[in-house]
């Protein structure tokens, strides 16, 4: 039987016609928007427009498709010109220092407040000491002190006068005061005292006792006088300070009179300054025994403004992307300073999180990063539910630490969160987290491929122009654009679709630009694109080269000539992550009489995946249905992927396995110049498989290396025809008649090509034609069944075979 003709070279590669473009290079193109994402854009528009609780967005699609760029671009364009949200700052809480106050100001006024407060503190540092250095102040203090002193001295002097009048003296002792009789300016000696008359001694002692009582009365009044004096000095200090401070604070209050919280803060600050005047009056730092510089006076930090969010220079609403969505990067944190070996903090060390920065606008987060950071997802949900950002460390939330820290007032939250993630993550969240559906009600799903039409080709050209402009790359001529589009179709593994995997396309453009510049061109031409593609492969195809070399050196046995019974070249794809390629693999089958079991050796040794096993079971069923409907399938067969030492999965070799098995049954040799790929169903129909282009090219590379004789080729499912975007060298070989690609719809077509004889169809009597593959296979199975039947009969000698006496 002569082989039918293979596919025409034109059907192996669907070209993009550069003539359809009405530009010479992409430099002439403007715009270049978003390609084929209408559904996602509608969802974005809806999600951004609806201002209701829980209408946050989840943007899903495969990685590298440009979700972030599209979303960011859309949001920035949408929010352009909008009034920026307010500034937020934290101020010291004079009533509860551990609970700093959050204060909202119109955008831009936070910075002004901060500067005003810095200037105010500077002014206070100058004005207060000056006020207390005036002669008037010192005079008044001295008056008060003199009053106290006079009261004390008058009291003592009065007592002293009375004492002297009684012939006694009041003496200051090391521990206090004492009364003694005096003579000639000296205390009376004890012996002289003893010589005094009894009456005189009694008088003296009675006088001393009485004077002691009076002295006690005087001394009891002294603390009261001192307290009174202190109070008067304190009142004077307040009066002087108020005079110095009041007008400075009033000046700022007037400026911020429209913000009640600031006015209240300034009132509290004024009281605090007056209560703590010594901090302004004694500016000299105490000597530090360890010689450590303490820096800014910590006591005055409480008058500062911690400008948490400053929108003074913002244009439009904030669109924030947090690349590292740690819990504290989201909700903010309270930092600490080391001071003399201890960790200290205050409200100036409160740092904003992404939620603060995005408040009033949009926060974009990578869902996978968010979910893999401990507590970040929970923290985000808590903030969205509560509609406020509360800065709490994890230690505080979970009571890991019980040290005193700050509890800043929460800040009201009004933003939309946009999560970017892949589909699996989206469905996992939908399934396992009920909060997700509550909080992320809008789904924007990005396509990873679009239909390949002339209109989309034109739009794609615009997209390429925009990318080249954005990345400052050379423009592409229209032929290069066509070549990139063709590559996008190949990337999509579909001649009728285009991949919109922008990350890969952008890499291709950058590398094409490099090669164009290397060649001294200012415009990217198709050769540059091809060079970039070739070099991409060249950089990563060491493994492929080695694997091909092993085949070419017959270390891995692959026949590409002759014909063999029960042996077919299958095609398998090896995926290295950033590069995948295909290699031929020898599949062999053995058949003998048995009880209908087909042994999949890969499965037996746990090297076969579930889908592969499923494929083998399907072809077993196919065999039984086709050849053994009216008798037992009396076959014992085994299928092996020769020299395969890794896991095999997928059912794309089930046609190959079927052919090998039928060949083994029928005893018909199969042409080794052909390789086969495709899966088969129970009715013998061949179904589409993935990686068709790489598979054909993988076999082509081996055959070409050994020498193409015009008989080499690959058999593929007819349903894969639309996916063909083969390499140019393969297409050229086909055009030259040195290689062929056959598309088959049934397993019979495949085996006919391999065996070189028709597979055969049942005639009116239900028989396959004599000499056909199916007839031979069926006959063989019938023989097996008869033989098995014979074996099943009881022996004529009356003995069971196993019981034959020795």
């Amino acid at each position, binding site marked *: 039987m002569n082989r039918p003709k293979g596919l025409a070279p034109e059907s192996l590669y669907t070209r993009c016609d550069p003539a359809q473009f009405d530009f010479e290079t992409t430099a002439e193109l403007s715009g270049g928007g978003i390609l084929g994402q209408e559904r996602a854009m509608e969802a974005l528009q809806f999600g951004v427009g609806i201002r209701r609780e829980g209408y946050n967005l989840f943007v899903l699609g495969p990685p590298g498709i440009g979700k972030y760029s599209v979303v960011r671009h859309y949001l920035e364009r949408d929010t352009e010109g909008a009034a920026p949200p307010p500034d937020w700052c934290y101020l010291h809480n004079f009533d509860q220092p551990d609970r700093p106050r959050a204060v909202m100001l119109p955008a831009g006024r936070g910075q002004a407040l901060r500067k005003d407060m810095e200037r105010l503190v500077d002014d206070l540092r100058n004005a207060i000491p000056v006020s207390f250095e005036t002669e008037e102040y010192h005079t008044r203090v001295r008056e008060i002190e003199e009053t106290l002193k006079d009261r004390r001295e008058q009291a003592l002097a009065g007592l002293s006068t009375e004492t002297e009048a009684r012939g006694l003296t009041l*003496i*200051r002792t090391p521990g206090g005061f*004492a009364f003694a009789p005096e003579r000639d300016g000296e205390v*009376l000696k004890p012996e002289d005292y003893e010589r005094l008359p009894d009456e005189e001694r009694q008088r003296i002692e009675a006088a001393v006792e009485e004077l002691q009582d009076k002295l006690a009365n005087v*001394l009891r009044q002294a603390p009261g006088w001192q307290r009174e004096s202190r109070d008067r000095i304190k009142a004077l200090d307040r009066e002087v300070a108020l005079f110095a401070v009041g007008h400075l604070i009033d000046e700022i209050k007037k400026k911020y009179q429209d913000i009640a919280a600031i006015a209240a803060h300034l009132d509290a600050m004024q009281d605090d300054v007056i209560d703590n005047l010594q901090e302004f009056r004694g500016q000299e730092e105490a000597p530090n025994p360890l010689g450590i510089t303490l820096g800014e006076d910590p006591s005055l930090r409480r008058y500062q403004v911690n400008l948490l969010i400053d929108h003074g220079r913002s244009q439009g609403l904030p669109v924030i992307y947090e690349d590292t969505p740690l819990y504290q990067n989201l909700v903010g944190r309270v930092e600490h300073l080391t001071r003399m070996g201890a960790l200290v903090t205050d409200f100036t060390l409160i740092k904003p999180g992404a939620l603060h920065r995005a408040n009033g606008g949009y926060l974009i987060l990578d869902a996978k990063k968010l979910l893999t950071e401990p507590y970040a997802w929970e923290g985000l949900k808590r903030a969205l539910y509560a509609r406020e950002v509360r800065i709490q460390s994890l230690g505080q939330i979970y009571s890991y630490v019980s040290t005193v820290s700050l509890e800043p007032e929460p800040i009201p939250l009004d933003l939309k969160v946009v999560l970017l993630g892949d589909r699996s993550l989206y469905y996992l969240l939908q399934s396992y987290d009920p909060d997700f559906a509550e909080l992320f009600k809008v789904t924007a799903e990005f396509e990873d491929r679009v239909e390949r039409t002339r209109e989309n080709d034109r739009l794609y050209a615009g997209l390429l122009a925009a990318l080249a402009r954005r990345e400052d790359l050379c423009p592409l001529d229209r032929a290069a654009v066509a070549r990139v589009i063709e590559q996008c179709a190949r990337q999509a593994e579909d001649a009728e679709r285009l991949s919109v995997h922008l990350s890969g396309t952008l890499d291709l453009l950058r590398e094409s630009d490099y090669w164009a510049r290397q060649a001294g061109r200012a415009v990217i031409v198709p050769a540059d694109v091809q060079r970039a593609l070739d070099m991409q492969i060249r950089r990563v195809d060491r493994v492929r080269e080695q694997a091909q070399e092993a085949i070419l050196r017959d270390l891995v046995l692959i026949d590409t000539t002759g014909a063999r019974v029960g042996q077919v070249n299958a095609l398998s794809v090896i995926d290295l992550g950033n590069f995948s390629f295909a290699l031929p693999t020898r599949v062999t089958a053995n058949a003998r009489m048995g009880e209908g079991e087909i042994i999949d050796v890969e499965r037996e040794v746990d090297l076969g995946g579930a889908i592969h096993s499923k494929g083998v079971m399907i072809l077993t069923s196919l065999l039984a249905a086709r050849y053994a409907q009216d008798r037992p399938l009396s076959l014992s067969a085994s299928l092996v992927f020769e020299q395969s030492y890794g896991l095999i999965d997928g059912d794309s070799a089930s046609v190959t396995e079927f052919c090998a098995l039928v060949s083994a049954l029928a005893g018909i040799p199969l042409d080794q110049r052909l390789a086969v790929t495709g899966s088969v169903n129970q009715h013998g129909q061949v179904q589409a498989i993935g990686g068709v282009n790489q598979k054909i090219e993988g076999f082509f590379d081996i055959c070409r290396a050994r020498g193409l004789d015009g008989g080499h080729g690959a058999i593929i499912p007819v349903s894969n025809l639309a996916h063909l975007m083969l390499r140019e060298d393969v297409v050229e070989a086909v055009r030259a008649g040195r290689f062929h690609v056959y598309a088959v719809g049934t397993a019979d077509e495949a085996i006919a090509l391999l065996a070189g004889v028709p597979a055969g169809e049942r005639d009116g009597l239900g028989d396959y034609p004599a000499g056909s593959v199916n007839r031979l296979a069926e006959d063989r199975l019938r023989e097996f069944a008869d033989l098995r039947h014979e074996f099943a009969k009881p022996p004529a000698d009356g003995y069971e075979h196993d019981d034959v006496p020795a």
Partner: protein
Amino acid sequence: MTTSPRDAVFRRILLPLDSGARDGPGIDAAIGLAARFHAEIVGIFIEDSDLMRLAALPFARETIPLSVSTRRLDPADMARALRVRAGVLRARLQERATRARIPWSFHVARDESLQEQLGEAAASDLLILGVGGRRAGSLRAADRVTRYFFSHGACTVWLYRGLAAGAPPVVALLDDGPSSRRVLAVAGQLARHGGKPLLVMVSADGAAEFARRAGEFGDIPTDGVEMEFRPLARAAATDLIRMVTAARGKLLVIGRDSPLASEAGYRRLLEDLPCEIVLAG
């Protein structure tokens, strides 16, 4: 003899101390001056015999201000208290002087040796007398020491009050006494580190006498100290107090032979002038 500010450098500073409570600032002031003039300090703790006699009286009781309570006094307790007080003051002087690298000595003077020790100390250049003291209600410390120096001593006496010690401006009073040149020299020394002019008040009747007397002092080398002469009505304490107050003087230097330096005179100055007073001799 010409007396210049350089000649008036204090080489030995005598610091009498007693059981009064205000000696700490006096020690600090003495240390400051000693450091400035590279002088040594001689501390003398005067163990007052009156206190010992008081403690021996049968009815003697001490009233303690902190608790407003009384306790019985006896000689042994009093002696112990005085020893403790002397030890505290000695330690304080040692600590301050060592830190400032100033030569120092400390003595305890009892009745029997007081005269002798004071005689030796009289050779000092400067005596610092703290205000306050044993006798409650009095203005002078260690009255016996004070009286001794006012009757025997020839050195300069600083009536230390703890008011911005030695801060400028310094005011000097030149009256008719023979110590006027000494007054000017001491005032010049004290003003030299202040960075402000030395204000010299010359007591004179009329402009002609003022011009004449100011001219007499014009030849004194000032060692860089700027001097400003002003007339003062003859020996009037009231006028002096008014002028020193107006000039915001922090330290007044007058001669020991000035009529204003009598016991009654300086009591008046101490009461009405909020500044330090130095009696130059």
